[in-house]
C-alpha cells in the first residue's frame, strides 16, 4: 500500500488546484515497511491512551471554530480520519498516514507514521490543519507544527464519551454539524439497543487481547472496557492499575475469563488451533474450551465510527441467544 501512490494519484491531487496550491511531489518510498503489525497496534492503541489534561489548541478550553473552506486536513490517527469520512467530509482529507486502511484515503499520499509524521511531507503537501489525539507528547509536535504555520487540533480518544465529543467538534470544524449529530445519535442509539436486548442476562467474563506475547490487555477507563460492558461482558482485568497493562499467565489462569476476545486483522491467519499451541495461552480454560472470539482488529482497535459495529459483533458473540442465534 505504501507503494500505491504513483502518477495517477498525483494527477488526482492536481485536480484540487482550484482549492489550493499544487502539492509538491512526494518522493516514492524505496523500501516497504516490514514491521507494520507492531506499529499498527501501537499507533492505533495510542489513540486511546492520551492524557486528558493537555490543552491543545482547539481543545475544550477554546470553543471549536469552523475552519476555512479550503483548509487541507490530515489526521494522525486512522480513527479521526474515519470519523471525518463518516460525516461526509472526506474531500477535506488530502493525505493519510501509513496506518490508514480506509479505502477513501488509500490513494492519498502518506505523511509517514502517526506519532512521527514527516514534517517535510506536511509542508510539501501544503497541509493547513492536523487532527491529532491528545497525548503527552503531542504538545511538542503541535508547537513545532505551529512554527511551520500548520494548526494542530487535539481530540480526546479514550472513552465512548470522548468519541461523541470528537464527532461533535469535528462536525463544527469541517462544517458538517448535522451529519455529525446524526452519527453520534446513531452510535448512541445502537449501543442502547444492544444493552436493551441483552437486558439482565448474566455477564460473561472476558479478556481482551491487545498483544499476545507478552500478554497485554485493557482495563477500566478505555473505550474497549466500555464496549465489553455494553456487550454484556465483564472484563476480568478491569481493575488493573494501568489502562493497557501487561499481565502474567498466572493471573490470567487465576482470573479465568470464560471467553478470550482476540482482535485479528483482515490478512491474519491466526486460528484457534494456533492459539492452542501457544505456550501460556494453551493453559487457559477458555482456550481449551475453544472459547476464543476473533474480532475485526480495525473495528475494535480504533475508537471511530465502527464502535457500535464492534459492540454489536461482541454482543452477538457473547450472547448469541439474545440475538436469535444458537449457543456456540
Amino acid at each position, binding site marked *: 500500500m505504501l507503494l500505491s501512490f504513483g502518477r495517477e494519484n498525483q494527477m488526482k491531487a492536481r485536480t484540487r488546484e482550484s482549492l489550493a496550491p499544487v502539492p509538491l511531489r512526494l*518522493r516514492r518510498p524505496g523500501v516497504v515497511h516490514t514491521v507494520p503489525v507492531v506499529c499498527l497496534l501501537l499507533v492505533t492503541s495510542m489513540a486511546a491512551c492520551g492524557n486528558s489534561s493537555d490543552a491543545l489548541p482547539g481543545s475544550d478550553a477554546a470553543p471549536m471554530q469552523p475552519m476555512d473552506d479550503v483548509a487541507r486536513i490530515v489526521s494522525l490517527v486512522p480513527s479521526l480520519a474515519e470519523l471525518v469520512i463518516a460525516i461526509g467530509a472526506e474531500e477535506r482529507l488530502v493525505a493519510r498516514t*501509513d496506518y490508514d486502511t480506509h479505502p477513501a484515503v488509500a490513494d492519498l499520499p502518506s*505523511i509517514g507514521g502517526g506519532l512521527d509524521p*514527516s514534517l517535510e511531507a506536511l*509542508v510539501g503537501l501544503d497541509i493547513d490543519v492536523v487532527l491529532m489525539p491528545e497525548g503527552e*507528547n503531542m504538545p511538542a509536535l503541535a508547537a513545532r507544527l505551529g512554527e511551520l504555520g500548520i494548526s494542530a487540533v487535539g481530540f480526546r480518544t479514550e472513552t465512548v464519551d470522548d468519541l461523541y465529543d470528537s464527532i461533535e467538534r469535528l462536525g463544527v470544524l469541517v462544517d458538517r454539524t448535522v451529519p455529525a449529530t446524526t452519527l453520534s445519535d446513531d452510535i448512541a442509539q445502537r449501543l442502547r439497543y444492544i444493552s436493551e436486548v441483552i437486558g439482565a442476562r448474566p455477564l460473561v467474563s472476558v479478556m481482551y487481547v491487545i498483544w499476545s506475547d507478552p500478554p497485554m490487555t485493557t482495563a477500566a477507563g478505555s473505550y474497549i472496557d466500555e464496549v465489553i460492558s455494553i456487550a454484556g461482558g465483564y472484563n476480568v482485568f478491569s481493575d488493573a492499575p494501568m489502562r493497557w497493562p*501487561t499481565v502474567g499467565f498466572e493471573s490470567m489462569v487465576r482470573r479465568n475469563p470464560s471467553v478470550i476476545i482476540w482482535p485479528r486483522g483482515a490478512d491474519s491467519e491466526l486460528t484457534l488451533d494456533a492459539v492452542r499451541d501457544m505456550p501460556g495461552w494453551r493453559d487457559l480454560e477458555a482456550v481449551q474450551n475453544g472459547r476464543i472470539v476473533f474480532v475485526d482488529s480495525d473495528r475494535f482497535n480504533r475508537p471511530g465510527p465502527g464502535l457500535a459495529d464492534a459492540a454489536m459483533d461482541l454482543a452477538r458473540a457473547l450472547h448469541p441467544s439474545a440475538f436469535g442465534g444458537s449457543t456456540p
Partner: protein
Amino acid sequence: MTRHVLLLVGLIASFAFSVVVGLAVGAVDIPIGEVFDALLGSGDSRIRTIVVGLRLPRVLLAAEVGAGLAVSGAVFQALLRNPLAEPYVLGVSSGAAVGAVIAIVFGMTATSMFALPIAAFVGAVVAITLVLAMAAAAGRGLDTHVLLLAGVVIGAFFNAIILLLVNFADLETFRAAMLWIMGSFSGATSESVTTVAVWVLPALLALTLLARPLNLMSVGEQSAFHLGVDVRKLKLMLYVGTSLVVGVCVAGSGAIGFVGLVVPHALRLVGGSDHRWLLPACALTGGAFLVFADTIARTVVAPAELPVGVVTALAGVPVFLWLLIRYQEGT
C-alpha cells in the same frame, strides 16, 4: 605531515558534499536549483520552509552531533587506552536516557518543549558526577580501570531504571521513549542547533587544543607525567569536556551509537593516531557520516523515517571492515 594536510582537505570536501546532499534530498523532491534559491532567500515560500526551516537545522544538528561523538570517542579511546571505549562508556548516555524517559513518562514533555533536552542533560551530568565520585573515592588519581568499571556499573543501573519506568508506561509513552532512545534528528530546530553549538563547538575546540598532551597520555600516564604533564588535571578536563559534549549531543538527538567507536578507528587506520590530526579529522568525518546517515534515514522509507542509529550501524560496519582488512594487510 603533507599527507595529513591532503587528507584533511579531502575530508573538508566530503563534509561539504554531505551537507549539499543533505539539503538536496528529502521526502519532497525539490530540484537542486530551487534548493539554492531557497538558501539565498528567494523562490517558493513552501520550498524555503522545507529547505531552510526543516532540512538545514537537521543537517547542521547531525553535523554537530557527529563531530561531537566522533571526537569524544577518539579522546576516550586515548584516555582509557582501550580500543573498545566509546562516548557512552562512562554511563553518559544511560544517564541522559533516564532523564529523558522520566520527562516523557511523567508527562513533563507536555508542559514545555525544552523539558526533554534539559532533563536529558541533567541526567547526563548526574551520571558523570556519580562515575567521577566513585573513581575519586577509589583513590589513585582517577584510575582509568576504576573509571571504566564505574561507568559500566552506573550505566547498567540506569538502564534498569529505564526498563522499570517504561514497564509502567502506556503504549504511546513507551513508543515515544523508544523513538528517543533510538536517536533521531527529526526534532531539529534552529534553536536546538544553536543550543548544541554553544556547548559543543567551544568544547571541541578546547579538546583539539589538548591534542599534544593527549598524544603523550595515550603512550602511558607514567611517561606523560615524566614529560611534565599534570596527568590528574588533564584527565579531569578531558573527562568533563567530553562528557559535556556527549551529554549535550544525547540531549539533542537521543543516543546514536557507533559513530564514536568506528569513526576514530577508521581514521587511525588511514592516517595514524597523532591527535593533532586525528581530532579535526574525527570532527569532519563524524559530521559527514551522520549527515549522510540521517539523509538515508529520512529518505529510504519516505515519508516514514528509520532510526538514524540503525543506519549508522548498518552502513558503518561494512565500511569499517573494509578499512580494517585493507590497511591491516599492509602493516
